[in-house]
């Protein structure tokens, strides 16, 4: 395997690994559910994309044929991650889970819960 390819793969993998770790770190660390929602939808999405591209390159090289089916997983995750986040956010709102004290616009939770327009 040529070095440049190996380096690219390694860099991509490292990026992926770090983002995934950061995503999960955020999940563990951030103080409320609404904030935690950000880490998997973003950091992890990017992280997994990194790993996927690395895998794509490596397998294309190994099979001596361009193998980009990992893109499909990326596509899938990009489509579903926001919906998953949305669903989870809805549950949190429905259960009226308190946001962190200093969160701005906390009063919106009630409107969200009833799916009404925000109070004027």
């Amino acid at each position, binding site marked *: 395997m040529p070095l440049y390819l190996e380096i690219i793969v390694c860099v991509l993998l490292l990026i992926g690994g770090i983002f995934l770790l950061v995503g999960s770190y955020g999940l563990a660390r951030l103080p409320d559910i609404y904030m935690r929602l950000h880490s998997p939808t973003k950091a992890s999405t990017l992280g997994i994309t990194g790993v996927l591209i690395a895998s794509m390159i490596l397998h294309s090289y190994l099979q001596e044929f361009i193998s980009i089916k990992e893109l499909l997983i990326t596509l*899938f995750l990009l*489509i*579903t991650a*926001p*919906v998953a986040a*949305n*669903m989870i956010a*809805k549950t949190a709102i*429905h*259960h009226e889970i308190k946001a962190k004290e200093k969160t701005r616009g906390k009063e919106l939770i009630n409107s969200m819960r009833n*799916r009404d327009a925000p109070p004027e």
Partner: protein
Amino acid sequence: MNALIWLPFLPLLGTLVPLLFARFSRTVCAFMTAALPAITLLLILFNAGAVFNGERFFSSIPWVPAIGLELAFRLDGLSLLFSILILGIGLLVILYARYYLSAQDSIGKFYAYLILFMFAMLGVVLSDNLIQLWFFWELTSISSFLLISFWGHKVEARKGARMALTVTGAGGLALLAGLLLLGHTVGSYSLQTVLDSGDLIKASASYPIITVLVLLGAFTKSAQFPFHFWLPNAMAAPTPVSAYLHSATMVKAGIFLMARFYPALANTDLWFLLVTLTGLATFLTGAYVALFQHDLKGLLANSTISHLGLITLLLGMGTDLAAVAAIFHVINHAIFKASLFMAAGIIDHESGSRDMRHLNGLWKYMPFTATLAMVAASSMAGVPLLNGFLSKEMFFTETLHQASLGSLSWMIPVLATLGGVFSVAYSMRFIHDVFFNGEPVNLPKTPHEPPRYMRVPVEVLVALCLIVGIFPSLIVGDLLYSAAAAVLNGAVPDYSLAIWHGFTYPLLMSAIAMLGGLIIYTNRHHFFKFQAQFPMSDPKLTFESVIQSITLKAQKFISLTENGSLQRYVFLTLLLAISMNAIPLLQLNATAGLRPEIPLDALSVTSVALLCIAGVATVIWHRRRLISLLMLSVVGLIVSLAFAKFSAPDLALTQLSVEVVTVILLILALFFLPQKTPKESSPRRVVRDLGLAAFVGGTVGTICYALMTRPLDTISTFFLENSKTGGGGTNVVNVILVDFRGFDTLGEITVLGIAALGIYKLIARMRLYMPSSDGKGRAWSEDKYPLLLAVISQSLLPLALLVSAYIFLRGHNMPGGGFIAGLITSVAIIQQYIAHGVEWIKHRLKLDYQIMIGSGISIATLSGLGSWVFGHPFLTSWFDYFYLPVIGKFELASAMIFDLGVFLTVVGATMLILANLGQLTTSERATQKEHD
């Protein structure tokens, strides 16, 4: 005499006759019923001469050689005697019953039972095979049950019949054991062989057991003490039945049995002790109790017990003459007791009562019957010139001539005389208390003589009493001799049937008995008063209460063990399983084998940690069900990872897809079941369960480890070698599934299909309470179908289907296949249900899931059947490579059709379950109170 084999079957055939002729007049029915027994009797009498000359007839045909049972009959002196009694008295009873039974009684049924019983009795006495003997023996119990319970609407009849059946049935079972042991000891179930092997039997270790068991059979049947209690209660039967069963036949079967096996089992100390003492006890008890009966039939029943005891006593004494006396008394007792029963029946029939406190002075009303009854009763008492006297004299003689009780031997004649005293007393009571003793008291009917022919049987029998009594040798000499010869299996001692032997001790004993009886009877009031001090225990009540208490105890025991607690059942199942399973492990020297282990890596350690934590968390939080479920998902995920890691991609895929569907199902269950589990296990139970769980887990883990660390050769090399060449696929796992072991897969999809059908059935009539709020009492959200989810799901569906097609098509060569594809499709459709609801889908997706299941299984089966056309077994696969321009080389395989069947079944089954469950809940959300 080859016809012998058919002889007992004539009456069997005869059981149908009364049923056929029941519609005609009673007389016709009676005559037709009597025909076959009469012919049988004639046939037997026809051969009697030969038997008297010492001939024995044997005849057999094979039946069940495996158990040593053949259809084997013999006609010797003993059989002949009993056959004549059975058939002769039977015929008289038929005639008698014609008049006895009322118009409401089904005479056809009665005769059928009677003839069936006759057949059974004949079978017993004619058998030449131990097992066949038992066959007929039990048949007598059954048919007698039918006869005793003939008036089943009466509670006494039911109870009496049950008691008789229970006691004689129990004895029968003991007898069976005895006979089987006997046959085993001798090595043959042929009766003759057994009779010829007396010495062998008596020498064998099992002789005591055999004897006890056989005697149990005999004693119960012959109502010997302490099993005698059933007989008085059997008096609930119609009197013809009593006259038949309790004089000449059923109760004599026990006597017959002892006589039959006399050569094989008798003449040992054990025999002597058991039989003599039992006989003596029975003789005395019966005689004593008989005196205090107020019921005419009760008196006769107890007298029967007493006389049976007498015969038993004789058979026990072990002298040849005693045996002769026993046989003689069998004849005599049959004759006088049958006539007495019939007389009692006439009295009952014509006066409406059997209670001697009401029956008085009947002499005036029915002098003829009274005369007959008095003669018979005198015979019972042992009055000279009557047959009863003769055998009683012989009995007294024999009691004097034995010395087996050592220095206590004198007790036997004394007690015998005492028994004689009571016999005379109760006979006297029968005569005096019924026919004289003043005027009748409150009889339901005015007594009168019975119809002419109803008396005939009694007349015949009483005549016999007289004739035998006066000319014994002439009438029964040959019969008695040949019977005795059969009992003794050879030499018969000299004996004399004369009426007069001079002034001997026996005569003295008779005289004492007469006198004593007279005294006791005249002073009976003192005795009655004395007896009244004892609380009268009704054996029927005692028996019923014993049975009741056994039943109650059984019920208590069962409700203690089968307490309806699944937890206990599962606990016991697992405990048994793991105990059995773990015990061999103690013999295992080292847990680890020689196979090198795979080194650990961080990933695996993490996975195992995750798995274990999640697993334990599932348990710890099992009462918070949703969290438990989430933990379970983690476990499932890690398990799939493990499969992937250890080179089983197919398994990983399957596990993943199954996992999701399972979780969805469990979520559905969460909705309908309570959200939380109350805390109800006691700490003790928790500790106990934890102990078992640890035991099971530890054992399983140990075995798993022991297995994995040991090398193994398997048949799998074959699959690896033949997968491509023989099965046409490179994914060996898949080729095994659809080809090598396609039959398993066919079964597996059938299971899935059936499960769906079953679930449909479960859902069909389900009335579920839909909670209106979640576990914490929060109302549900009003957003039924969240917008983002709805829109995105629509876009995902075609993608998911494409992936499904992809997984399906590659299955044969790469991880995948119909099952996983089916689950992916199902999950994609379920996703639509979640996002859009049932109503939305209903109009858009018109799939009949039931048909999908049916056609899926059909397609899979038909793909297997296809090979029949080419002469190959079911499921023989076919594949080939084809070439088409543009497309290129491609493979077609029958396995793909099979896999299509799998796919359809999976989709059909999963959707049938989920879609129907969904439909169920579209109805109004009812607010229902929780039931728990």
